[in-house]
């Protein structure tokens, strides 16, 4: 993904910032393998269960306070759809207004280009360190590593991102990236690492969240005050004014967009909204959906350069990086409505068990499994496996503030993954089995033969097993991999079609030869 990034695998190698885990995200193991690895970590499961339960409850309370919640969701969906349909016009309008307001606008077709633009701008500002507002798109383009390779230290300033960065870790949640860490682990990370990269943790630091937070405030204050260049993302970019919006809690965002001389905002092209008035819809939906608050503590809105107030050298980098590919897919494009609230992962039974690291992407959970394969493409095995990381239960649909139909996109992407398997010349067991099944079911005579044979198997087995066992257990190779997580019912001794025929020919009576005890399927003509 990013040609300019060179990864340092040893955490002790000469680096400016803590090294993340080695390897590229798209080289991650496929989801089922990674999920198994994560499930083995009972601490993680414990932390996740508590955290997601808390946030689900908070969200539900705050959403219930708003009588027009459904109307807001419908409006948000419509605004985003209307915007995506004329995305080019709105981007050009935003660009014109930003330039009028004294900002410089840059366009990046992919991650490598976005990173290069940021590196060049940072270098031109004459600094060797920057402070960062938490931003998903800068995670997506792996901007920190590009800067590190160029000799610039990028300091995360969001508390959770700081925990992740100091912990040589990766984020596991869109909103609360350190959701997988508990207070004791965080204390240990702070004590161990803070001193290596700036103000050390105070002596006798306990695992009380208030103390840990105070330690982060102290550690970062210095970095904020001396920073001359910063980067941010943007929750919204308002086309008719050129205004950027950063929604946050801690005030680190305000520090980053206010204190330095140079501000570089990296914004995905789908973040544009047509008018300032559209914010009235999103500013009601986003805080309640994400942190379960009526309003987040701080929101900063700025339009280019404000003379005498804040950064006087303002840049905006508009990033595609796969978004136009998603936009071209009539079913997949709805993922671009996402406002990164993270409500979907908090309700997802899969995410709630395995956590964010199993997804091999900065976007985990339901939004991750529909966004990642569209942004990155499906050439990597992990990206082909992601659409299957769902039970299709639809809990995410109910909470999504922009009404993304997750199951629809998931099934669509599974179809794509299956087509890729078919197109692949190497043999795949699933493709082979499906081919055989397709051939057998393709003609009635073959189908009848199959059902007769399975009925025979059923009768023999039932007689042998005394009718007590309803399912096969373990199956011999090559079906082992399938059977280890699923139950295969013992076939009916009478195929359904035969039961049906008998039933229809003798209406109102129990089909001949079938006692109610022996009947596998209840037949209701």
């Amino acid at each position: 993904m990013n040609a300019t990034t060179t990864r340092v695998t040893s955490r002790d190698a000469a680096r400016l910032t803590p090294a993340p885990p080695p390897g590229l995200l798209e080289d991650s193991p496929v989801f089922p393998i990674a999920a198994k690895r994560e499930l083995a970590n009972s601490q993680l499961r414990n932390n996740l269960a508590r955290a997601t339960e808390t946030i689900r409850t908070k969200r539900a309370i705050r959403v219930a306070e708003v009588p027009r919640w459904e109307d807001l969701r419908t409006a948000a969906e419509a605004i985003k759809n209307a915007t995506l349909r004329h995305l080019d016009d709105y981007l050009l309008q935003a660009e014109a207004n930003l330039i009028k307001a004294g900002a410089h606008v840059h366009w990046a077709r992919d991650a490598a280009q976005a990173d290069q633009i940021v590196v060049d701008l940072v270098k031109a500002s004459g600094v060797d360190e920057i402070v960062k507002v938490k931003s998903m798109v800068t995670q997506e383009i792996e901007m920190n590593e590009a800067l590190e390779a160029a000799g610039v230290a990028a300091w995360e300033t969001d508390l959770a991102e700081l925990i992740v960065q100091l912990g040589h870790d990766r984020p596991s949640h869109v909103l609360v990236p350190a959701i997988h860490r508990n207070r004791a682990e965080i204390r240990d990370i702070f004590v161990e690492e803070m001193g290596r990269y700036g103000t050390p943790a105070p002596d006798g630091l306990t695992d009380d969240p208030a103390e840990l937070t105070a330690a982060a405030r102290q550690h970062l204050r210095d970095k904020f005050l001396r920073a001359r260049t910063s980067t941010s993302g943007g929750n919204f970019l308002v086309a008719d004014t050129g205004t950027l919006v950063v929604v946050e809690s801690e005030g680190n965002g305000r520090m980053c967009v206010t204190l330095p001389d140079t501000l570089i905002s990296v914004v995905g092209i789908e973040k544009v909204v047509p008018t300032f008035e559209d914010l009235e819809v999103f500013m009601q939906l986003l805080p309640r959906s994400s942190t379960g608050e009526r309003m987040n503590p701080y929101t900063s809105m700025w339009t280019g350069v404000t003379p005498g107030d804040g950064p006087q050298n303002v840049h905006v980098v508009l990033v595609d990086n796969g978004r136009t590919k998603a936009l071209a897919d009539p079913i997949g494009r709805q993922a671009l409505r996402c406002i990164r609230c993270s409500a979907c992962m908090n309700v997802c039974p899969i995410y709630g068990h395995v956590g964010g690291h199993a997804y091999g992407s900065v976007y985990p959970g339901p939004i991750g499994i529909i966004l990642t394969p569209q942004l990155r493409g499906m050439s990597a095995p992990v990206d082909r496996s992601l659409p299957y990381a769902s039970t299709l239960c639809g809990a995410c649909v109910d909470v999504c503030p922009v009404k993304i139909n997750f199951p629809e996109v998931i099934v669509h992407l599974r179809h794509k993954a299956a087509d890729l398997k078919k197109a692949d010349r190497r043999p795949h067991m699933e493709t082979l089995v499906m081919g055989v099944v397709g051939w057998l079911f393709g003609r009635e005579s073959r189908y009848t033969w199959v059902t007769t044979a399975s009925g025979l198997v059923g009768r023999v087995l039932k007689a042998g097993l005394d009718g007590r066992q309803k399912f096969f257990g373990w199956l011999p190779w090559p079906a082992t991999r399938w059977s280890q997580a699923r139950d295969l019912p013992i076939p009916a001794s009478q195929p359904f079609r035969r039961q049906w025929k008998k039933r229809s020919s003798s209406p109102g009576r129990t089909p001949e030869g079938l006692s109610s005890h022996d009947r596998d399927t209840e037949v209701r003509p």
Partner: protein
Amino acid sequence: MNARDEILRRIRAGVKDVRRGAPVDVPWRYGQPTPMVDVVGRFVERVEDYKARVERVATPDDVPAMVVTVLADAGVTSVVVPTGVEDTWRQAVAAAGMRVVVDDPPVGKAELNEIGAVVTTASVGVAETGTLVLSHGPGQGRRVLTLLPDVHACVIRADDVVSDVPEAIARLRPAIDERRPLTWISGGSATSDIELARVEGVHGPRTLLVIVVG
């Protein structure tokens, strides 16, 4: 082809199918109030819910004494004020023995970091969400003023409190058209990043004091 043209071309190619369809109807009436019996009462309740201190005074004449009270209770010894703040407030704070610095000429970052509190006005209050919005004109000053000091005392007129976000957005349109920055403040700075337990006070002011006038 440069990146800009390339991205615009990809967008146009990607949305061909929907552009041929009917325009998208946005079923939303903008700028509508949210019905509530007591707008200012709701505002007070919601701001207090963020663990901020809220005081109501009857007239503008009562403000200076109340500003002194809330600052003194917070243990403040030094205060910065932007230009445009009422002289009477400043005089009252100084008379109470606190050091007062006016942000004219602009105070440096390092000095601001050492000052205990800031006193400003606000442009709009949002009752439903307990939010103060600063548009950083006279009386509100540069954004950094309300960021580095640990205590923020904010005075808002009851007339400037609206029911909910849509009305607030409508009132803020002129400021946005003038390209003023906006800061929306809902309680003190906070985080829930450690086990989702809310902790008040991270990087922004840890104490928010609100005085509602009228």
